[in-house]
């Protein structure tokens, strides 16, 4: 069984380290906040200017002066701080934020990522994605392995306009967990019941398969 979006988020949560600062992109990454393991303390940064972002507010407790980068109403946890956009991106470019988790339309085997523009369609802009991918020490991409037409999104070379180059280190897809190394996707784990053959067929880029590939455990 391929993983659903919530399960992808759960797998990423297993990667989180205690006492770290994490920036979550829009889409699947947002779900990561829901499954933080007990004993792991994480502070979420939202690039519009908050560190220590909390859950959505209860009905009637929304504050128009308190939103996340997706413009959703949020809360701030005890110990949170607010700051302007230049300071926010100082945290990001200065590599004070430990981990960035974001979605992608395409990733290439050398770690390039495309996630902001489809030529010929409405262009909405890159927001903070280019700053995030250019600067983060550690980037995890949460994505579907193939697009709706069944075509691979893990490619030799991205076809869409790039967001950043040589930056993705790890991918958690609905089929597998992969590392980007030596200009290849190295298969680390596979989703329960998903065969190596399925992953091969869904991966256009170089795929390294070494030894037994364990199934992901929840």
């Amino acid at each position, binding site marked *: 069984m391929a993983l659903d979006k919530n399960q992808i988020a759960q797998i990423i949560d297993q990667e989180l380290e205690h006492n770290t600062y994490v920036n979550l992109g829009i889409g699947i990454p947002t779900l990561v906040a829901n499954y933080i393991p007990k004993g792991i303390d994480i502070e979420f940064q939202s690039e519009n200017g908050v560190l220590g972002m909390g859950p959505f507010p209860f009905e009637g407790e*929304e504050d128009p*002066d308190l*939103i996340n980068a997706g*413009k959703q109403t949020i809360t701030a946890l005890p110990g949170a701080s607010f700051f*302007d*956009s230049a300071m926010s991106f100082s945290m990001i470019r200065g590599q004070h934020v430990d981990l960035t988790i974001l979605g992608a339309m395409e990733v290439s085997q050398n770690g390039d990522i495309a996630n902001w523009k489809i030529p010929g369609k409405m262009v909405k*802009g*890159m927001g903070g994605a280019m700053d995030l991918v*250019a600067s983060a020490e550690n980037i995890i991409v949460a994505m579907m392995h193939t697009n709706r037409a069944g075509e691979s999104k893990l490619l030799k070379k991205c076809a869409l306009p790039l967001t950043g180059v040589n930056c993705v280190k790890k991918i958690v897809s609905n089929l597998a967990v992969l590392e980007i190394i030596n200009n290849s996707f190295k298969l680390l784990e596979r989703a329960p019941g998903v065969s190596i053959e399925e992953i091969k067929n869904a991966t256009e880029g170089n795929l390294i398969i070494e030894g037994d590939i364990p199934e992901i455990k929840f």
Partner: protein
Amino acid sequence: MINKVVSNIEQALKGVESNMTFMVGGFGLSGIPENAIAALSKMDVFGLTCISNNAGVDDFGLGLLLQRKQIKKMVSSYVGENAEFERQMLSGELEVDLIPQGSLAERCRAGGAGIPAFFTPAGYGTEVAEGKEVREYNGKPHILESALTADFAFVKAWKGDTAGNLIFKGTARNFNPLMAMAGKITVAEVEELVPAGELDPNQIHTPGIFVQRIFQGEKYEKRIEQKTNRKRD
């Protein structure tokens, strides 16, 4: 103390002309200068270049200026929430310059800080880097980005005093302090205007030196773009 208070919105917007460049604070609809935007949308000024992270929604924020086709060019990082914007962009009526959000913020800050340009890793290897100087620092390529300034910067704060000192609230701060620094004339509107001396100097986010005009906004709608809630257990 230098008194920065203007008595009405007309005074606040005095000198605004067609074909000028404006900076407009806010992220989404949070922390936008609602009163200045509403007044600008009633003036006959056209051909504007607006530097603002977003472009508002159809009937609020900079969307009001777009509806009257007052804006010639938008300089933003993300513009996805506005159908009229999309129509004008696709038809070629509206010029759009998309900039990575951190570079946009830093370019505003640099404009106010006397730094004409800086190198950043953001956008290297992408179409944003086209035509820009590339230099390697610490083994990593960076691109040269230039500072931004504006004829007017319109910003919004939570509290301000007659000397122009500003305090922001929550994530409504965003681009406002940076744009305040980069405006030749910075017009600050606040929810609450108090006499100089009433704000704690330790708590000031934007010192009054960056603000040329200040007024208390008549009213604030503070519209929420995406109301999201969690359930009570």
